[in-house]
Each structure stands twice: as structure tokens, then as C-alpha cells.
């Protein structure tokens, strides 16, 4: 019987956290709460503005309705097509850069760390700059318009696609690659027949996902003058034509949903 071992159960105590862990956890929570309090102080919320927010919101919707449907064929449709073109062309240009840079960043494919590091630097640099900032830069180079927007989309996406593609390459199975090495195949052949079939679904899935993001991103590019539907929205807002703003917002909403559905359907067939 277990009672024959008196005291053993009582002497062995089980606690989830050691005292050091408990102090650490308390400290962590304390810092979190302090950070929230401090942030609330710095953003200087003016209570009066908060009180009439519901009224403002209602006013907004009243001014938006009824929508100015005539504005769609006049200014929105063309801009919408331009937005889609910016997103698509930008994504294609990005793929052309992301493919080589992604390969160079994969440690198993290029076992030479300075090159990996350089490639990763390019990818991080691309991601660390927001699309709108890229757009402002390219407007400086190419002037305002869709070209600047396209390049902005492309440059921002290289980092995203290249990073995920490089990681997919690093996660590919070693076995088939070993087998092809043993046949005497060249490095390029090993990539084409050993790595590429393994990462192909991931690559196209990443590209589609990025296109989906780019459709949304290119919709705001016009706010800084880089072409697309954002320009129509900017004009309407400056003229306080909220019934026209509503048309633009609805159009963007429909296109984003359509893009989402298209991507989901294509991806399902891909994998």
C-alpha cells in the first residue's frame, strides 16, 4: 500500500514556476501595463472629439448616400483598371528579382555566407521601406503616375517574396538533391530537377498571395500621386464629394474581394 511510504507525497512539492520565474513574469506584465498607460498619454486623446464621434460618423454616412453612380464610368473605372495593372505588373517585375535574390539567400543552395548575407540585406532593405515611401522615391525619379506606382509595388514585394521563397528552398528535402548529385548532374540541373519541383507550389502560392496584397496596396498609391484609383479618391475627398468617395470605396472593396476569391481558387488547384 502506498501508505507504507509515509511522508513522501507531502515532502515533494510541485510548483509551476520557480520564484525567479514569478518575479520575471510579474516584471513582464508590469512593463506591458506601463507601456499601454504611457502610450495613451502620448497620443493625447481629446475627450471632446471622442464624445461627438458617433454624430460625425452618422454625418459621414448621410453625406455618402446616395452614391454618385455617374462618377464610376467617368473617373473610377479607368483608375480601377490602372490599379489592377499596377499590382499585376509590379508583382511580375518583383518575381524577376525575387527569384535570383531568394536563391542567393538560401544557405543550402549557396553555401557561402557573405553572399547569403548580401542577399538577405537586399531583402530586408526592400521590406523596411513602406510602399508609399518607395512610391515617393520613384515619383522623384520618374515623375508622378502609374510607372512610379508599379516600381514601388515591385521594390516593396521583392523582400517579401524573396524571403519566403528562400525559406522554402532552405526547408526542401535533402534526399532527392543527394540522389541527383550522385547521378553527376550539374548544380543548375540539380536546382531545376531537385529543388524546383519541391518549392514550385510554395513559390506560386507566395506570388499569388503577394499579388493579392498588391491589389490592396496599389489602391492607396494614388494618395501620394503614384497612379491608380487612389487618385480618384484623393480628388473626390479634396472636393468634399463624399458621394463620390463612397463609389471609390465600394469599387475597391469589390475588387479586393474578387482578388481574394480568385487567389483562393487558383491556389487550391496549385497544391
Amino acid at each position, binding site marked *: 500500500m502506498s501508505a507504507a511510504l509515509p511522508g513522501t507525497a507531502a515532502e515533494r512539492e510541485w510548483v509551476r514556476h520557480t520564484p525567479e520565474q514569478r518575479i520575471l513574469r510579474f516584471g513582464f506584465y508590469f512593463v506591458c501595463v506601463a507601456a499601454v498607460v504611457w502610450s495613451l498619454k502620448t497620443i493625447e486623446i481629446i475627450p471632446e472629439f471622442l464624445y461627438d464621434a458617433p454624430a460625425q460618423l452618422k454625418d459621414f454616412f448621410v453625406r455618402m448616400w446616395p452614391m454618385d453612380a455617374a462618377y464610376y464610368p467617368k473617373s473610377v473605372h479607368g483608375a480601377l483598371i490602372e490599379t489592377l495593372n499596377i499590382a499585376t505588373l509590379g508583382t511580375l517585375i518583383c518575381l524577376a528579382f525575387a527569384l535570383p535574390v531568394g536563391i542567393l539567400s538560401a544557405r543550402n543552395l549557396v553555401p557561402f555566407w557573405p553572399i547569403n548575407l548580401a542577399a538577405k540585406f537586399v531583402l530586408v532593405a526592400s521590406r523596411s521601406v513602406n510602399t508609399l515611401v518607395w512610391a515617393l522615391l520613384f515619383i522623384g525619379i520618374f515623375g508622378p503616375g502609374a510607372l512610379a506606382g508599379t516600381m514601388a509595388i515591385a521594390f516593396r514585394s521583392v523582400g517579401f517574396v524573396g524571403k519566403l521563397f528562400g525559406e522554402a528552398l532552405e526547408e526542401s528535402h535533402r534526399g*532527392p538533391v*543527394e540522389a541527383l548529385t550522385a*547521378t*553527376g*548532374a550539374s548544380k543548375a*540541373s540539380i536546382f531545376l530537377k531537385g529543388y524546383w519541383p519541391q518549392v514550385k507550389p510554395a513559390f506560386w502560392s507566395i506570388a499569388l498571395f503577394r499579388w493579392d496584397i498588391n491589389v490592396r496596396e496599389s489602391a492607396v498609391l494614388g494618395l501620394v500621386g503614384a497612379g491608380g484609383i487612389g487618385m480618384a479618391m484623393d480628388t473626390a475627398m479634396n472636393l468634399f464629394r463624399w458621394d463620390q468617395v463612397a463609389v471609390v470605396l465600394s469599387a475597391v472593396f469589390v475588387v479586393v474581394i474578387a482578388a481574394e476569391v480568385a487567389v483562393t481558387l487558383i491556389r487550391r488547384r496549385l497544391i
Partner: protein
Amino acid sequence: MTDRTIEIKGLVKEYKKGVPVLKGIDLSIEGEGITAIIGPSGTGKSTLIRCINRLVEPTAGEIRFQGLDLATLKGADLRNARRKIGMVFQEYNLVERLTVMENVLTGRLGYMNAFQAWLRRFSAADIAEAFQLLDAVGLGAFAHQRADSLSGGQRQRVGIARALMQHPDILLADEPTSSLDPKTSVEIMELMAELAGKRNIPVIVNIHNVELAKRFCHRMIGMTGGKVVFDGPPASLSETHLKEIYGGEDWLH
């Protein structure tokens, strides 16, 4: 010494400096037939086989094959030598998302440049031979299926066809039956013996199953602790030898 002879002299492999896994292996493997390498896990059998086609870099020693020292070859010379050394793997190592046919044809990649590989420009002769090999391994009807739809035994058959597609002068097999059930294991060994025998290709096989090795091999090499401790025909492999190779004796009875 024919082109199908491998002579290993003083082969040493250290994964960590000062800790050799292979401690100076001297071996000569010639002629046709299957040579089995047996020994406990971690004793360097796989390392030995992989040093031959340089999937593993040897630390010291020589591997003579067709007038070359495989241990020191580089670049295109190494790739050209690898074409003549077929290999079959424990986990089959097929490219899962390609068809069975294309997996067999990858055996020809050493003879093609990357551009031809990309456009799948396999010669008509290669394609005809691939079909023949698939028939020979009993998978003629599976040519257009994806490799990941096959069972383990079927995948290993494709692996054998791929290796033979290289027109190898020697065939290496790294535990080709360790992931298979007993019946399939025998079938795979039979297939290797038959196909390699027809082409007079010597086979070096790492194997855990001593009985299976005895049944198919004309020569057995027992390794333990990174050294060869037995080398002879299966008939002369006694229990004393097995005790020396694997250690202990309780498992024998």
C-alpha cells in the same frame, strides 16, 4: 584491375576533428556480384559508401576507380566520375512531385546540360531505355504516375531503374531494404542481383539484415568501430565473427 574495380586505401573520415568515424579502411572490390557491408549502426558503413561518390568528403586516403583518385576529384571531373557510380538509397530519394518516368530519366542528368534538362530534351534512346527499365522493374504501367503515389517497394524499384539509367560501372546501395517489409526486401535484393548481374555491375550494399546479406552476397565485409574486422564469403562468417562485429551474444539466440 578492370574499370569496375574500386580500390580503397587508408580511407579516414572525421566529421569532428580528431574523432575519426572511419579509421583507415583498405578494401578492394572487383568483379561482379554483390558485396555486403554489415556492422552495427553508427560504425561508418554509410559514411564509407558515401565517400566513394563523395556525398561525404573523405578526410584522408585514396579511392582508386578507372585510373582516378575519387577522393581528390573536383568540379566537372567529379561529376563525370559520379555518372559511372549508381546509387540506391534507404529512403528512395525520388523527386516526389515528378512522374515515375521523369524520375528514371533524371539518371541521365549527368550526361546533359542544364538547358537540356530544363526543356526535358531527353534523347529518344534514353526514353526508350527508361521504358525498358521500368518494364524490367515491373512498373511499366506506372510511368505516368507521380512518384509520391507509389508504395515503398515500388519507389525503391524506381530508385534502382534511375541508378541503372546512368549506365553505371558500379552500384552503391545504402541500406536499400531497411525501410521495407521482409517480403519486399527480398524482392528488391533479387531485382538488384538480377539486373546488376545481367550487366556485370558489381554492387556494394550496406545492410542490417545478416540473413538477407548471406542469401544474396558472394562476399561480406564486417565493420565495427570504423574498421574492417571480417572480409570473406558468407559461408565463413561464424557466430564468433558476428559477436566481434556487433558485440555481445544474447541477441544471437
